[in-house]
Structures are given as structure tokens and as C-alpha cells.
């Protein structure tokens, strides 16, 4: 069957089960966009290529499938880079198709030419410049395989215009053969026997779960292990939802803005089982003091994560879900019965920390941002998909909205990309048209990709944006307040647009609350209104996120409310 490069791309997309693409056309993608119109794949026209990648990323995070976006050469591709780096840092499977100038012009500084493969080399799991149409089917199949397998990540495929137009014989459903790429899914059971012995003997164990548990669909196995072996669970920001946040064994989030009990129990534990985590600096604080009394077990599919930041007693390379299931199978009923008694004092201690140092804030005359998130949790019964921007809004969402299921909290954890939340919400809404998708935003970060409201309106994607509007770039202002003698250099944003009018200008609905007693009404109205809504909550301007561990300090040394 002789097909053009553009047609081959359509065939492979269909083979890979792609139903939605986020993109923006240009001279170097006309052929692909032209073909796309003839298929059943829905194309969502974003307003900026960064939004395309974030939307594909959001789609991937809530579905576990590979997200796909399509951008043109030159500026189209460079605009996508922040999105690519975001997906890379959080190990999200995304395939980015970029158009490129024709092969005979490559290297000539042609119009809209940029070496996007060179630019994205350090922020993709892998990338390709397709040299000829004959290579295209193999490369596309490899791209999807690499993106979703092992530790997932973004893969960029740069397709020159003449490769899109040239024809070749296409053989469907080609098998991927890669010489050296072979991720280790099956853990070493000898290592796991040792882990099980530690689980049985530990008096003060803690499980520290991360995004890897969600990516490997291991949440159920993790919950089983924690409940049966009576081990409290803390999660990284990326791990929220890997273990039910409302479970009595949940310690909440760990790290710089982690809960008191999560950070203290990490300091005091005698066994720390890290699963699908990478011991990021925002988690560990000062590494010398991190879990200093504990034997550390580290389970991850990516060997480079292990022993990168902290020394580990038992390394286990493997898929989180598979590993957790093997551990569960090694734990016999009679062992588990004994554990309840052994764990008693530890769980009592944790309960005491929980009661004495709750996440809290002081209610005042003005709206407290935490109160908005709490009310949002209450009104949605914890059942919404929450995306966030980055900064204080993100931390309050992580602290005050409890996630009982994986794939419900969508946030830029590693790169910390402001402007992520709205396009990611669009991607999540595309994946689940009937779900309630809420972007918890700040007034600063929402302005970074606000143009995507037009996308939401165009495709009738009813995302709700909750702006915690404090007229500041709040997280940086908080650092300035605490560590820079309140010199608020360049963080005051008192010339934001009128978000209500802005929503209306986009064809969405805008609502505002300025007093605490208006919060619930506005939230109710906003959530019940069909179509996209922006809710502007005028919150306390100088509210800080607590607890806070100053950068580089041990995580047990927290600033509290």
C-alpha cells in the first residue's frame, strides 16, 4: 500500500489508539493537518503551542494513555519546549509531532527553521528527525513505544515537509525492535524477600509513594500493602492520589510544604520504603538529615533515580505495580496479624502529631485561600479532577483537597511550570467530557496561558477556573517576606485584568467573590454553570503556605502557622 508520509502518520496514530490531538498548524504541518481532517481523530486547535503540549500532557495524566500534540516548525516548535520539559520532569508519556522545513533546506537558516531535535535533546526521553519517508513508520512506532514504556516521557518526532509529502510502501502494525532499550519491569525477588523481612521487623515504618505508583497503575496494590501491613503512607506532590488521602493511614504530602506528621514521621521512622519517587530536593530538604534513622528501600523502574540523591539500603529496580504485588504475595496472613500490635505505638504517635499540628489557617474578615480550596473539596465531595498552576495555589490545592484516587490531581511537579493548569484542564476535560475539571490558579500564573480560555469556549469544554487572587506572585512574595526582609521586589501584580470581564470577553462566564460569606455561593454557581467559568476570589494578600521548610533545612524543622 503506497502512502504519503502524512497518510502514514494517520495510520500509525490510528494503530496507537489516538483519538485526540492538540495542535496548531503552520507551513510545515499543512500536509498533516490536511490529512487529519479526513480521519476520526479530533483535533483541538489551541491558541499557543505551549498549551498544546500541556493539554496533551493533562490528557495523558488522567487517562494513562499517550498524549499527542502537533506543532509546526520554528516558533511552533520552540513554543512547545516548555511543555516538553514539563512532561519530561514529571515522566508523562507525550508524543510531540513537529513539522520541519524540507530536508534540502535543513541547515540553511530557512524560514521558520530551528534545530528542535537539538534543542529538545536534554528534555525529551528520546527524539527523532525523520530523514526519509521510508524511516517514518519505524520511527513513529518507536516513539509511542518509548513514550509509554519503562519510565514514561515525552518523545519528539520532527518530520520535514517533503517527508510528509513523499510516498512509500506502508506495512501496517510493524513491531518495534530496539537493540538496547529494555526496561526492567520484573523486580529481583531476592531483594524483595529482604524488603519483606524489614516490613515484618520494623517498628516505625513509613511508605513514601510518588508519581511512579500512579504511572504504573499501582495505587490499588499500594493501598493493599499499606492497609494489610499497617504502614502509614506519605506521598510526594506527584504521588497525591496514589493512596487515599482520607484514609487514616495517610500522612498527607511530604516535603517543603508537607504536613507536620509526614515530615516528622520521616525523621523518626526506622524503615522508609520509597516507591516510584526520586527524592527531589523539595522532598528531602537537607539530605544528610533525611530519614536519618531509617533503612531506606527504594523501588523505581529507572535505575538512575536510585542512589542519585540519597543512599539506599535496598535498591529495587522494577515496575511499581508489579513490585508491590510481589511484596503483597510474600506477606502471609499470620505475619500481618502480628503487625497490628507491633505498629501500635508508632500509629499512636502519628495520631498525636496529627491532632496537635493540623493543617490550619486563621479565619479573618477577608477570604482565606485555604478556605476556598476546603469549600471546593466539600462541594465536589473530593470527586473533581483538579489541575493547578504553580506556587501557593498549587500547594494549597495539594494540602486542602484530599485525593482518594489516582489521576485526579494534575500538577507540574518537577519543572513547576506556571501556566500549566488551564491547558492541562482542557486536556483532562477532552479525555473525560463528563467529569468536573477545576483549575486551581493564582492571579499570576493564570495569565501565562489565559488565551486557552478561547480553546475551552470553542470546543465547549466546561473547565472551571478558581483564581485565588492575591494581587501577588504569592510564593515568591512569601520567600521575600520570610527570607528577604519583606522586600517585595517585582512580585506585586496590581495591574491584573478584570477576570470577570475577561471571562465574558472570551465568551465564558465570570464570577467574583470578595467576602468569605460569598465563597460558597460563587463556588456553587460556578460549578453548576454549564460551560467554562472563571471564578475570581479576592483572597488575603499576604497569606503564607505553612508548614514551610526553608530551602536546605532538614524537613523536620518546619515553620508553622
Amino acid at each position: 500500500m503506497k502512502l504519503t508520509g502524512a497518510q502514514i502518520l494517520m495510520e500509525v496514530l490510528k494503530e496507537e489508539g489516538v483519538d485526540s490531538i492538540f495542535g496548531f498548524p503552520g507551513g510545515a504541518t499543512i500536509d498533516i493537518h490536511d490529512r487529519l481532517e479526513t480521519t476520526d481523530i479530533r483535533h483541538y486547535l489551541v491558541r499557543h503551542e505551549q498549551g498544546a503540549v500541556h493539554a496533551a500532557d493533562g490528557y495523558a495524566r488522567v487517562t494513562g494513555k499517550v498524549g499527542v500534540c502537533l506543532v509546526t516548525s520554528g516558533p511552533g516548535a520552540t513554543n512547545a519546549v516548555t511543555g516538553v520539559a514539563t512532561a519530561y520532569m514529571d515522566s508523562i508519556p507525550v508524543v510531540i509531532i513537529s513539522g520541519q522545513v524540507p530536508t534540502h533546506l535543513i541547515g540553511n537558516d530557512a524560514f521558520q527553521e530551528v534545530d528542535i531535535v537539538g534543542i529538545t535533546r536534554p528534555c525529551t526521553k528520546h527524539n527523532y528527525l525523520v530523514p526519509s519517508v521510508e524511516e517514518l513508520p519505524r520511527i513513529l512506532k518507536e516513539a509511542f513505544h518509548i513514550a509509554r514504556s519503562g519510565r514514561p516521557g515525552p518523545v519528539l518526532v520532527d518530520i520535514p515537509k517533503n517527508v510528509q509529502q513523499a510516498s512509500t510502501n506502508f506495512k501496517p502494525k510493524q513491531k518495534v525492535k530496539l537493540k538496547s532499550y529494555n526496561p526492567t519491569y520484573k523486580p529481583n525477588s531476592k531483594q524483595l524477600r529482604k524488603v519483606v523481612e524489614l516490613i515484618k521487623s520494623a517498628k516505625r515504618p513509613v511508605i513514601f509513594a510518588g508519581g511512579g505508583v500512579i504511572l504504573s497503575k499501582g495505587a490499588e496494590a499500594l493501598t493493599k500493602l499499606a492497609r494489610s501491613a499497617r504502614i502509614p503512607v506519605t506521598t510526594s506532590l506527584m504521588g497525591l492520589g496514589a493512596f487515599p488521602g482520607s484514609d487514616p493511614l495517610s500522612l498527607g504530602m511530604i516535603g517543603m510544604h508537607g504536613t507536620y506528621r509526614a515530615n516528622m514521621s520521616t525523621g523518626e521512622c526506622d524503615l522508609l520504603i520509597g516507591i516510584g519517587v526520586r527524592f527531589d530536593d523539595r522532598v528531602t530538604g537537607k539530605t544528610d538529615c533525611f530519614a536519618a534513622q531509617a533503612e531506606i528501600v527504594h523501588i523505581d523502574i529507572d535505575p538512575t533515580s536510585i542512589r542519585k540523591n540519597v543512599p539506599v539500603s535496598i535498591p529495587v529496580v522494577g515496575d511499581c505495580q508489579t513490585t508491590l504485588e510481589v511484596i503483597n504475595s510474600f506477606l502471609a496472613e499470620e505475619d500481618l496479624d502480628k503487625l497490628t500490635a507491633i505498629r501500635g505505638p508508632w500509629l499512636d504517635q502519628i495520631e498525636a502529631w496529627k491532632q496537635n499540628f493540623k493543617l490550619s489557617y486563621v479565619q479573618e474578615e477577608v477570604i482565606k485561600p485555604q478556605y476556598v480550596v476546603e469549600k471546593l473539596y466539600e462541594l465536589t465531595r473530593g470527586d473533581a479532577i483538579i489541575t493547578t498552576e504553580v506556587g501557593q495555589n498549587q500547594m494549597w490545592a495539594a494540602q486542602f483537597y484530599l485525593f482518594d484516587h489516582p489521576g485526579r490531581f494534575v500538577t507540574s511537579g518537577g519543572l513547576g511550570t506556571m501556566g500549566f493548569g488551564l491547558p492541562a484542564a482542557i486536556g483532562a476535560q477532552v479525555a473525560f467530557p463528563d467529569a468536573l475539571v477545576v483549575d486551581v490558579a493564582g492571579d499570576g500564573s493564570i495569565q501565562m496561558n489565559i488565551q486557552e480560555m478561547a480553546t475551552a469556549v470553542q470546543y465547549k469544554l466546561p473547565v472551571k477556573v478558581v483564581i485565588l487572587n492575591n494581587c501577588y506572585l504569592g510564593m515568591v512574595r512569601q520567600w521575600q517576606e520570610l527570607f528577604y526582609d519583606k522586600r517585595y521586589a517585582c512580585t506585586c501584580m496590581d495591574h491584573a485584568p478584570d477576570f470577570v470581564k475577561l471571562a465574558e470577553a472570551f465568551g465564558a462566564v465570570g464570577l467574583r467573590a470578595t467576602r468569605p460569606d460569598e465563597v460558597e455561593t460563587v463556588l456553587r454557581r460556578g460549578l453548576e454553570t454549564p460551560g467554562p467559568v472563571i471564578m475570581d476570589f479576592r483572597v488575603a494578600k499576604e497569606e503564607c503556605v505553612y508548614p514551610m521548610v526553608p530551602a536546605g533545612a532538614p524537613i523536620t524543622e518546619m515553620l508553622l502557622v
Partner: protein
Amino acid sequence: MTEEKHILTMLVDNEPGVLSRIVGLFSGRGFNIESLCVAETIDPQVSRITIVTKANEPLVEQIEKQLRKLINVIKLRDLTGSGSVQREMALVCVRAKPENRDEILRIVDIFRCKVVDVGSEYYIIEATGTEDKMKALINLLKPMGIKKIARTGTIALFREPH
């Protein structure tokens, strides 16, 4: 922890951009490269890259893991130590004043080098050997006046069992 020299050799796909991925990994993560050699192997689709790096134990572990993670790295081995044969090569352009010529030729003989070009005032000497041998040779030739020098990095192969 002390830093030690490690000779890392790897087989990689012989494709455009692969070297850039490897070098980019070193620069992006702050790893150090002391020397680097690349050439095709007997299989034209595969190249061998040999990198000499200085790192402490945990860091070299991290470097090796990061390299193995690259899709285009097929196989990687640490060839540090006596289990491998290691060689460097140098071309040294040394000033050959009439009164020094005998001495230079004696050194060439002792070090089993070759004079590959003879000019009116300069010899070009070709030398191969271990890194230490290269250093010793260069030190001996220095007083005569080295005009220019071109050196390769280390290449190495694992010794086959006897």
C-alpha cells in the same frame, strides 16, 4: 570520597546526533570528560565511544546509569584497571637541532615510536602507548622544544580470557 579516573567504553548506534546526546548528558549534568574517542566498529551501524572521566564512586555509578538510559547506547563497560588494554596515540612535532637529533632518535627508539616526517628543523614523531608512557615521552621531548602536538584520548578493549 576520592575521585578516580574511569575509562568508560560504549557501543552506540552510528547515527547523527548520538555523540551530541552523550556529550550533552555530560555537560548538562555537570559530569567531567577528560578525553573522548569515537570511531565506527566492524559493524558500520555501530560506533565505539571511549570516555575517560574523573568521579567518585557514587557519581561514576550515576554516570554509567545515565549513559545506559540513552536509547542509542547499546552496551557500556567500565574498563578501568588491568582487565583491559589501554592505548593513546600522539603526534609530536619536536625541534630537531643538529646537536639534539641523536638524542631524539634514541628516545624514539626507547619508547618504540616512529619518526613519520622529517623537516629541515623539525621531526614529527608518532607514538602510541598508555597514558603514563605518553606523559613520560612528552616530558623527555619538552626540553628540545615541542612546536605542536596532537593527542588522542584513551581507547581500550577488555582482555579476552586466556
